[in-house]
């Protein structure tokens, strides 16, 4: 039983690390602010949940488990709220998505030669 929990913990930690690294590659490689926010916002919540569940399976005692659950719940509430506030501020200040802008300018140049 103990080895089963260790294997599950390692699997959760590996999945969480992979999601973290994919979010980091996404924030470096994506071309636009909104796509970067998609990469970070999608991977951040799931990666945090996976790593914290992997830590919960490390067989800690009761209080540590309670603190991990508190951190997980706080992250699940806080991260989407911050992402929503950031995206609404960007939209409110007319930050235009790059790809859409380029497509529109090409369409305008092709329709109005």
């Amino acid at each position: 039983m103990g080895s089963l929990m260790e294997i599950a913990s390692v699997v959760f930690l590996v999945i969480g690390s992979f999601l973290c690294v994919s979010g980091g590659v996404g924030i470096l490689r994506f071309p636009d602010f909104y796509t970067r926010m998609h990469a970070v916002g999608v991977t951040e919540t799931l990666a945090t949940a996976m790593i914290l569940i992997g830590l919960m399976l490390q067989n800690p005692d009761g209080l540590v488990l309670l603190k991990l659950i508190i951190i997980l719940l706080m992250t699940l509430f806080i991260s989407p709220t911050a992402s929503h506030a950031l995206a609404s501020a960007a939209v409110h200040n007319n930050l235009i998505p790059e790809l859409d802008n380029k497509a529109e300018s090409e369409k305008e140049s092709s329709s109005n030669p």
Partner: protein
Amino acid sequence: MLIAATIAILVVMIMAILRAITGPTLYDRILAVNMFGTKTVLLISLLGFVMGRPEFLDIAIVYALINFISVIGVLHYSDAKVFKASEQQKK
């Protein structure tokens, strides 16, 4: 395995700092700082388990709250001129 996850999170934090330095707009920098804070919470939790002192989780809870308040506090001034000036540079 805990040490490997810690190293992965450190690499991701370096990536977030690179985006925060080279971010073309102000929102990219705020996004990178937000991601950096979340990864710091994970790093503190993992380091507590690596070093055998899970009492570090209290610091992780406090850091999560401070991270949220800092992002919301910066975005509270999103009507200021600085936000629109950086966006006009991009146009």
